[in-house]
């Protein structure tokens, strides 16, 4: 499933790299601990997190993730958006909680990676 379909279905707000939404999502991972993400998330995964600081861009691009969903209406640091645009990493925001988003993703057939 492509990022664009997921963003539309879950009504996510695109905050960075809107031109990169034709990426195929290979699975999902949810955590707020960066080391766990580094250890577990796989290339092409969609990462759901509460973290909104610029280092999520470093982690996501290092792992070549498809994108990041920042939950619970957390406002992104301006530098997060700037970095993500530079690196071409799509970032979405939503007012829903992580659990809700993960549940919706599972319904769409986006699977976990462990």
């Amino acid at each position: 499933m492509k990022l664009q379909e997921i963003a539309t279905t879950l009504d996510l707000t695109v905050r960075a790299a809107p031109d990169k939404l034709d990426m195929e999502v290979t699975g999902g991972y949810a955590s707020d601990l960066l080391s766990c993400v580094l250890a577990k998330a796989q290339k092409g995964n969609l990462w759901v997190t509460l973290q909104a600081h610029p280092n999520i861009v470093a982690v996501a691009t290092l792992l070549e993730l498809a994108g990041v969903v920042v939950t619970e209406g957390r406002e992104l640091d301006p530098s997060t958006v700037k970095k993500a645009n530079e690196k071409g990493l799509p970032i979405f925001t939503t007012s829903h909680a992580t659990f809700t988003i993960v549940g919706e993703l599972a319904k769409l057939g986006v699977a976990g990676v462990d």
Partner: protein
Amino acid sequence: MDKDVKKEVTKLQELTYELKVEHAMTREVITVTPQATMAEFREILRTHRISGTPVLEDGQLVGIVSIEDLIKALANGEIGAAVGEKMTLGVKTLYTDEPLVHAVGKFARFGCGRFPVVNRHKELVGIVTQGDIMRAVLRELEIDYREEEIHRYRASHIFEDIVADETALVFGYRVMGKDFSTAGEASSSLKTTLSRLGIAPPVIRRVAIATYEAEINIVLYTDGGEIVAEVRPEQIHIEAIDGGPGIPDIEQAMQPGFSTAPEWVREMGFGAGMGLNNIQACADVMKLESAVGVGTHLDIIIYLDEKGRA
């Protein structure tokens, strides 16, 4: 990959400044004289499959006539009228040496389909449409793309090209302490470099994760340090070196979940006590030495077998 994306966007803008109108224009310009009839003009359009031409009199540009003028003439039953009566006067032109970005601006501003191109002596030397501009930029992008491919090819064959008993490439990166805005740049740069060298993606992933964790440790806990990566045909050796404060109990530090990170660092999702474990999981050999008040020296070795190189 990530760097390429950035390049594409700015590259496109850069190209419209770099390329001149003469790079995009068509040099063989079909023209008509003001004395030609609209019927003759129609034949010219049909024969050459174009939608408009400049009007020249004694080599001077006096107007421009398009398919729209022809349609109007047809509607008014004036197909026999002279082009000179039906053409648009006061033609906007572009100079050969103007950057393409000017042309793009003029197309947007005047909404016309083509601009005659003149040299600085006001002589007509070409004509340019929006399609011509697009093609010129794409052509240039393709050349750039090929150069990047050659670049990659050369880098990935460097070990074969170098004649020596032993070969090692060393890349050094400085890491600023307490600076979260640049955290991750050393590992990101190293990742790009390794990918150019043709190292296999699974190996790059292990190097990138291990280096990122080491880099974050330097950022979080020290006043700065350096990361040095030594790439040999058989292995990648990464050293992360800092000037303190040092780790009092390495065995304890290696316990999964053990962390001395302050609360605000944990809130950012760092300091989960998993960094060193992640490094260990990625490394074939990991050696951690530290002296309180002196600093920490972390060695990571990741082996490259036949499959590790592209």
